[in-house]
């Protein structure tokens, strides 16, 4: 139903636009009634809290009582705070590794599923399951596997490095977080890539193989360029999600051992119990700016390379 109505409609709507503009020279009052409620609650519950938070980041507010302006002192203190620097280092590094791991696996699986295989629908259904389960619960399950099953298995086969839980190892705990985060986010990326792959006309592959192109060459010269837009969407959304990582860490390591896996989100939340409210608001503001910058950077880089979005 959708396709039959939308396909011929798109150009028609565009042609009709000027006529419509003339007819409704001024929007009816009810049009505002449709839009304003959404704007209002959105402003109250999202925009104002964000602005208030940014405002307090320039003060010494502790969450209650009096406060006075500090200017940029909170921000200056952030730069010299080793705990904060570690949290940013961990979060950025973790996001980068996870986005690469998840995208590569998702793309490989999507290509595999797009081939002529048995039980394609059933396999796809299984691969998407992680999308519908709660991240914290999954993290608890993996917590058991990493701290009990994996060491027991390593002991049985005599593989020394893994005989104690990797969650207790400051150098390896982040790997567990990468594994569980990727496990959870691969399905979303997989579905986007599946949609991208089906949009590639198959005669492109036929023509190129007549010219003698092998599978790898076809992947590099046809598949990859044509799904570049989908790769971009996936990495932007992926990195944004990974930067805010929280649930998985709570379920696996709680930020430990020590502060080895403490993410930026966790340090911000510490501000509510730790009494350094204004300081953590400055942290949150910096975090927001970094998130936006990374997204914009990705967009600019891709524009420069003529990737269509």
């Amino acid at each position, binding site marked *: 139903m959708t396709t039959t109505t939308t396909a011929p409609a798109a150009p028609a709507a565009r042609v009709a636009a000027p006529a419509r503009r003339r007819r409704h020279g001024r929007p*009816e009052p009810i049009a505002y009634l449709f839009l304003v409620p959404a704007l209002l609650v959105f402003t109250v519950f999202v925009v104002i809290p964000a602005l208030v938070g940014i405002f307090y980041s320039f003060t010494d507010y502790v969450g209650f009582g009096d406060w006075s302006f500090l200017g940029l002192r909170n921000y200056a203190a952030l730069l010299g705070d080793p705990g904060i620097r570690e949290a940013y280092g961990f979060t950025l590094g973790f996001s980068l590794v996870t986005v690469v791991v998840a995208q590569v696996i998702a793309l490989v699986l999507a290509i595999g599923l797009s081939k002529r295989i048995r039980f394609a629908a059933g396999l796809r259904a299984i691969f998407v399951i992680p999308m519908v389960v709660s991240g914290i619960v999954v993290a608890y399950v993996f917590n058991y596997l990493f701290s009990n099953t994996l060491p027991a298995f390593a002991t049985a086969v005599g593989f020394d490095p893994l005989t104690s839980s990797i969650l207790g190892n400051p150098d390896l705990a982040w790997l567990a977080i990468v594994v569980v985060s990727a496990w959870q986010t691969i399905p979303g990326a997989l579905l986007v890539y599946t949609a991208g792959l089906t949009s590639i006309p198959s005669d492109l592959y036929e023509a190129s193989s007549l010219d003698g192109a092998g599978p790898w060459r076809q992947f590099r010269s046809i598949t990859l360029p044509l799904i570049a837009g989908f790769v971009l969407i996936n990495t932007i959304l992926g990195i944004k999600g990974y930067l805010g990582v929280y649930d998985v860490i709570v379920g696996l390591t709680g930020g430990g051992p020590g502060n080895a896996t403490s993410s930026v989100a966790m340090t911000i939340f510490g501000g509510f119990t730790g009494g350094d409210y204004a300081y953590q608001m400055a942290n949150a503001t910096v975090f927001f700016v970094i998130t936006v910058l990374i997204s914009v950077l990705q967009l600019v880089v891709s524009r420069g390379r003529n990737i269509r979005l």
Partner: protein
Amino acid sequence: MTATATTPLQGSVTAPVDDRRRRPGRARRRSWPLTVALALCSLTVLAPLYVTLTMAFKTSEQSVEGNAFALPAPFNPASFAEAWQLTRFPVSFSISVGVAALTVALTLLLSSLASYAIVRYWSHRFFRWSFVYLLASMFLPFPVIALTEIKLTALTGLDNPLGVAILHAMFQLAFSVLLFSAYLRSIPVELEESARIDGATTWQVFWRIILPLLGPMIATVGIFAFLASWNDFMLPSMIVSDPTLQVLPVVQNIFQSQFGTNYNVAFASYLMAMAPTIVVYLIAQRWVISGITQGAVKS
């Protein structure tokens, strides 16, 4: 492998998959090696679920042994009764359902109305800028406003499941408006103009013509809103001040401290938390996947 039949080259293990493209006559042939490889990959998804299932039916003695893949012996379903009581399952489950349902309802209502107004009056600056205003929040992660949000909800008496539902809906708004407006742009304006000539009001046009046409996108937006709300831990754990009103994912944390070694009870609880969505998903699988795909691609 199919490739070796025509070319005596070695090392063409990956080739057979693509062979169907080369020879349309063989298009019917399905690749077994690739199927097996993908099936093995799917074990990474199935294994944790299998462990959850078997652990839930073990005795507490067997559950501490560490061999998560062993079958339960003896079979012990008593863990469920204990988990049911500890998590106050009926209460936390109902709260989770309520929060998710309210999130979906609020998201659909606010974003469909707003998107319709935005698309139909796109030529007006106010509507165009509202779109940009709402969409800008796509890049705003929740941790950034979490602290002020906690204060705001405490101040307004919304430090409860109702507040969680409102905030969940707010964080779905940008994405939902994006999906709805992309879809609405493809609906021809003539459809509603003929209705207007017959004397329909804007509200009637929206309710009788636009909303039915939005059907598939309503499903997509609804699925995304439901999953985001149902599975969330961060926001309710911050906002809800009364522990007896917590949602299902958050109450699972009791097993991290007090009942440290009763893994069987913990896993029975995890299973009860995971099973509802997995079962619903498996029943409506095709529908859910097409809904999610539509959303993911439109974004």
